[in-house]
């Protein structure tokens, strides 16, 4: 590890963008330009960081770019950032999503405030991913709520305010016990080693605790993460929120916000409480499997793309948790891959939702027939993205799900089997429905629909390309993620199964 | 200073002691009653003289039994209780006036000490360690009688009168207290016996002289006002308030008020004598077995002189207006007595402190008088600026005076 200002720059850049946007208050177009530039630079920066990653560190450590600066010793507050493979993947995802989302959202009247919130959301998400300190992560994790709330509440659909409130409260309630768990863990550590309160990740991960303490801490943390993800029984805020969110916000929220939950589960809830794993794994696995089956089925029966995005997310989150808790390195790696892929596909879905809503006023597909004839390119994009979400081989989703199932089969075959069946069933159902909407004669209400515009194509092609690329050559991603994953798995299950 | 101020009780309570106490009580009661009777007569006579009249003369020598005759007459008159009256309070009020006056007398040393059956007996009913505070407490309580008498009558004028009276009494109580503190400070004790003893060494040790004349004057004025005597008898101002708080009273209850008023005069005189004029102290010849009688005579003499002062006040001075009474109390006497207290305290510690304190008091007094002047100019306080240059429109003012009316519905929702 070596000290470096890269991550700090990554965190300051969107803030500078916010400042720039707020300085151009009266001119929306200029504000948009400023915002776009800062997001673009941010994305470029993250790519540079990705390229620089681990170029100059000993192979033993997966953490890079670390900076630690104690803000308040008695409170244990510290500015402590670092990056490992998993974070790197998600940081890249976040910046990409933000860039595309911002580009795709061309609603006529977008106040600068909206752009500022978007930038802030990006900033906080990146902050959470690069936090190398439990408390700092938690702070960013909480902070993301504020821009999300405002974006949804103020620029969303007719009942957005209510939806945003529901979303905020849901997640806020979840994070209440999490904060308690965070502090509790900090004290366990402090009482063990003395000195000031510290929430440093590396330090905390070696905390000695009893297994019941571990379970309680896990439950406290996991609750918050599970709500944010959202994991199956706690997902009920998501349909209304994503149903009402403006497209760009929806993309940003669905694609990156949910990763905060799964990332937190993997990085903190799981890795900091190895002793809890044994007792909580069955529960999480059951929930994951239920989520997969339930999410897939609901997603497959929904012709509304927003609803599809929501429930396929639920299913995918099920896969991710299944992977995380499979206890095998392959499974966890798969989970990380799936996080990235899910982010990209969700982004694609929301870009499509935006496109459809511009044309038809809504993203519903159940009242149209034979769209393939009218808007072949758009239909093609829908197909690819949808296939990716249900894990059709050759696409990114497949790699993730495959790895997860592979990992899970080795350890918990029964769960894996059910999960597989669930997806297969859903795929069948989905294909059948797809046939109705896209094949056959064109229905009247779809005539006159324009096909994808150049901008839309310019945005969607890279998405599709990425999905395909990740499906075909996942190696660059895997090679960066795997060592970090291995460290976590090794920490959680010292004698662990690794295949 | 002794914890046990009364040597009589130091040896424990025996039957003899109880008997002595009982005798003292009865004796004091009798003496007070007779004194009151004489006081009434004395006042009527003296006033008559001042006004070139003759005054009572039928009953007894020089009409000395006139009071008794009046009492008997009143006793046989019809006892009227107004329909609107609060009966219990109405009946109780006269006693509430009388009792404090009587109790106050119990702490006044009328003479030195005598030895009866081996017991040293002080010639005063009681000598509690808190001494002079009893007088303050009683003057505080005497407010009730007046106040309740007026209130319970269920009539407008008595009520007004009683409110006036009680306000006046409370105000002057503060002055009294402040002067008493000065005296207590000089004597280093609160017991009346110690106060008297401290003055026993000669006229120059009398508090009248010892403390400067000011406290004496203040006390004299204050206690006159406290007992609603002329020229501070605004509560009974016939021209304004019919007859005062006891307008509705008749028969024996009225007599009780009357009694109380004169008893207060006697007590007040005795109290001044005790506090400022050395009480029973005075020259006494060596006469075997009768040495104890001279202090008593001195006491009676001094008290009579003061009682005459009261009568003189009544005969000579016009009645003050009510607001003048209150102003005198609050704006003159209270600051003055407080200032004098501080000066005396300063001198008691060190002469230099005394002068410094005097300077400070004079400075404060100047400021105070300036403040009074300004206060008098300013008139009643106005919170808003005068209507002429008000930038707020009349409508707005309406609105914000009305803000209480729309309590339930938020304004914005209309």
């Amino acid at each position, binding site marked *: 590890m070596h000290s470096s200002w890269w991550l700090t720059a990554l965190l300051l850049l969107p803030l500078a963008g916010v400042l720039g946007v707020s300085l151009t208050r009266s001119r929306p177009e200029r504000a948009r330009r400023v915002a776009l530039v800062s997001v673009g630079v941010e994305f470029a920066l993250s790519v540079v960081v990705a390229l620089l990653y681990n170029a100059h560190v000993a192979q033993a450590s997966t953490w890079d770019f670390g900076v630690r600066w104690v*803000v*308040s*010793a*008695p*409170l*244990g*507050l510290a500015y402590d950032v670092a990056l490992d493979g998993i974070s790197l993947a998600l940081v890249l995802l976040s910046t990409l999503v933000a860039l595309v989302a911002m580009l795709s959202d061309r609603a006529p009247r977008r106040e600068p405030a909206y752009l500022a919130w978007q930038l802030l959301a990006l900033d906080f998400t990146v902050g959470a991913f690069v936090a190398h300190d439990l408390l700092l992560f*938690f*702070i*960013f994790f*909480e*902070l993301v*709520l*504020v821009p999300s*709330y*405002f974006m949804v*509440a*103020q620029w969303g659909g007719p009942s957005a*305010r209510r939806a*945003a*409130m529901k979303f*905020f*409260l849901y997640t*806020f*309630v979840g*994070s*209440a*016990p999490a*904060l*308690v768990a965070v*502090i*509790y863990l*900090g*004290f366990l550590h402090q009482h063990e080693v003395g000195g000031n*309160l510290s929430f440093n990740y590396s330090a905390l991960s070696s905390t000695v605790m009893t297994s019941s303490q571990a379970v309680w801490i896990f439950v406290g943390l996991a609750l918050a993460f599970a709500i944010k993800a959202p994991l199956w029984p706690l997902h009920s805020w998501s349909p209304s929120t994503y149903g009402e969110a403006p497209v760009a916000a929806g993309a940003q929220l669905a694609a990156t916000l949910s990763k905060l939950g799964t990332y937190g589960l993997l990085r903190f809830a799981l890795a900091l409480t190895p002793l809890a794993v044994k007792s909580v794994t069955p529960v999480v696995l059951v929930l994951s499997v239920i989520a997969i089956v339930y999410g897939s089925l609901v997603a497959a029966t929904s012709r509304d793309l927003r609803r599809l995005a929501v429930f396929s997310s639920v299913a995918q989150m099920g896969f991710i948790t299944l992977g995380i808790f499979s206890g095998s390195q392959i499974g966890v790696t798969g989970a990380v891959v799936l996080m990235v892929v899910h982010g990209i596909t969700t982004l694609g879905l929301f870009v499509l939702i935006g496109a459809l809503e511009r044309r038809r006023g809504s993203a519903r597909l159940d009242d149209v027939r034979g769209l393939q004839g009218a808007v072949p390119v758009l239909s093609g994009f829908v197909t690819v993205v949808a296939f990716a979400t249900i894990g059709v081989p050759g696409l990114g989703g497949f790699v993730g799900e495959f790895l997860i199932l592979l990992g899970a089969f080795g350890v918990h075959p029964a769960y894996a089997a059910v999960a597989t069946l669930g997806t297969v069933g859903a795929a069948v159902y989905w294909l059948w429905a797809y046939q109705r909407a896209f094949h056959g004669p064109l229905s009247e209400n779809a005539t006159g629909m324009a096909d994808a515009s150049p901008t839309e194509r310019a945005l969607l092609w890279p998405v599709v390309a990425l999905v395909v690329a990740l499906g075909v050559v996942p190696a660059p991603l895997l090679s960066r993620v795997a060592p970090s994953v291995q460290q976590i798995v090794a920490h959680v299950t010292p004698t662990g199964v690794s295949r | 200073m002794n914890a046990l101020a009364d040597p009589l009780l130091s040896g424990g309570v025996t039957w003899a002691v109880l008997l002595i106490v009982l005798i003292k009580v009865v004796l004091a009661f009798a003496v007070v009653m007779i004194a009151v009777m004489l006081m009434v007569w004395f006042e009527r006579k003296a006033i008559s003289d001042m006004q070139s009249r003759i005054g009572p003369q039928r009953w007894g020598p020089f009409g000395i039994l006139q009071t008794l005759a009046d009492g008997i007459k009143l006793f046989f008159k019809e006892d009227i209780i107004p329909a609107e009256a609060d009966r219990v309070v109405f009946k109780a009020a006269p006693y509430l006036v009388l009792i404090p006056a009587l109790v106050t007398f119990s702490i006044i040393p009328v003479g030195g000490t005598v030895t009866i059956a081996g017991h040293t007996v002080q010639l005063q009913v009681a000598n509690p360690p808190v001494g002079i505070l009893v007088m303050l407490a009683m003057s505080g309580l005497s407010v009730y009688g007046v106040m309740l008498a007026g209130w319970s009558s269920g009539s407008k004028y008595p009520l007004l009168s009683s409110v006036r009276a009680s306000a006046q009494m409370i105000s002057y109580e503060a002055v009294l207290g402040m002067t008493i503190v000065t005296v207590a400070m000089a004597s*280093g004790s609160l017991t009346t016996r110690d106060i008297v003893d401290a003055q026993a060494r000669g006229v120059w040790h009398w508090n009248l002289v010892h403390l400067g004349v000011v406290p004496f004057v203040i006390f004299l004025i204050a206690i006159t006002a406290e007992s609603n005597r002329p020229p501070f008898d605004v509560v009974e101002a016939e021209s304004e308030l019919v007859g005062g708080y006891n307008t509705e009273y008749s028969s024996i209850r009225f007599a009780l008020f009357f009694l109380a008023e004169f008893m207060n005069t006697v007590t007040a005189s005795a109290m001044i004598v005790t506090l400022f004029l050395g009480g029973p102290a005075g020259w006494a010849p060596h006469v075997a077995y009768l040495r104890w009688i001279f202090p008593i005579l001195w006491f009676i003499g001094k008290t009579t002189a003061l009682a005459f002062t009261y009568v003189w006040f009544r005969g000579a001075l016009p009645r003050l207006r009510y607001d003048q009474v209150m102003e005198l109390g609050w704006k003159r006497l209270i600051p003055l007595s407080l200032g004098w207290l501080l000066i005396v305290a300063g001198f008691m510690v060190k002469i230099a402190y005394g002068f410094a304190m005097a300077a400070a008091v004079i400075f404060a007094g100047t*400021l105070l008088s*300036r*403040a009074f002047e*300004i*206060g008098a*100019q*300013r008139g009643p*306080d106005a*919170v*808003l*600026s005068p209507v002429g240059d*008000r930038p*707020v429109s009349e409508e*707005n003012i309406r*609105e*914000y*005076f009305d*803000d*209480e009316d729309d*309590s339930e519905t*938020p*304004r*914005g*929702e209309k």
Partner: protein
Amino acid sequence: MTTLTLPTINYLALAPFLVMAGMALVLLIATALTPSRISTRVATSAAVAAAGSALVITIVQGWQIARHGAQLTAAHSVVMDGFSALATASISSSLIFALLIAHDWEGRERFVGAEYQMLALLATSGAVLMTEANDLAVVFLGLEILSIALYVIIAFNRRRLKSQESSLKYFLLGGFAAAVFMYGAALVYGATGTTNLTSISYFLGANVLVHPGLLWAGGGLMMLAFAFKTQAVPFHFWSPDVYEGAPTPVTGFHASIVWGGAFAAAIRVMVSGLGTQSDTWRPIIWGLIVLSTVVGALFAITQVNAKRLLAYSSVTHSGFIWLGVWAATARGVAASVFYILTYAPTVLGSFAIVALVGGVGDSDHYLVKYRGLARRNPWVGGSLALLLLSQLGVPFTVGFDGKFAVLAASLDAGNVTASVVAMLAAAVAAFAYLRWVASLFAEGDPDVAPLVVPWASRVVIASSVVIVLVFGIWPAPLTHLAQHATLYFQP
């Protein structure tokens, strides 16, 4: 004659009190000696000067304490330690804010004269006295100086009946609470033979009471009174009415200055005096915490009046501060002080805006009035949103740091359940704040003219926002200070 040896007095310890009460006297004398009424500007400047000097004095105190340690003075009835210095500093700076808010309010209501400033200074001097009181009698007197002056300024606006009614309610209940407090003090006196907190503590340290019932009863009654003053449930019922009725600048007084005094005294009595008995009183505080946070949050979400909402919100916050008291450790004390220190400017800033929106007559306090405020006055609306988010406990605001500090302290002392409950309640209360924040940004009535923000309010709002943000992101200076806010005596 017996000689009297006066105790030595360290006037530095009493200086903040003396400065404030002294300035009140000066204003009183000036009022009497000037022919025209003193202008609000002069009165405010004088009072702010006094508060500012008190603030400076606390810095000197802190310096002295750092060099020579904490000390008892005036026959051990007053103590000067880091805790009192910091609490006094918090109270003094809150007073500056409160005075500035009141300055604009007096201008709007066209009040002239220095009465308000005098009473505010006197009330604050009572709170200051409470922070450094080391004797139950002094605590009581401080409490009463604070309360009685407060009754008057709550009823200050003679044109508003609400103001007087709420003052009456507060007065009656406050008198009741004072009597209860004193009865508790009497019982503690009987149980320990002294009213001096240090002596009480020594006594309890040196003697094990076989039958501590008397002490329990006394401590319990005193705690009841503290709970009343700090708006802890179930003794909070007066607070919404008083918040609604009191003039808005006075409302700001409550959660800053009154709390400063009341919590300081509560901490000193409970931790310094009865610290050895913490096992006994902790369950009571536990109940207070759980009830305050939950009830406060539940009622806050149903309110339609901004001031009532803030009243219930402060009930919740009170529960949080009690969390720090519950811990009864150095960390807990520091956390509570930190919370008060940061909550005070937050709530004062909020009330500055509420007072502005209330307008002439100080009566428009319904939440509907706030619709679109952020669109009409972006800076004011944004500030209010930030202040509310801080009360909600969003990270990078002082609200989060404060909650974090007390939670840390209470968890450190092993109070997991109450901490979880408090956090959940805070999440529920979030609804109330959010609804308000949302309405700030909603489309408002276009006919409503933007607010005019006078300079004093501007100063208050700006500084509270700066404090909330700067110390929210970088709380180190304040936490550092709070760490030195140790009690003179802690068993």
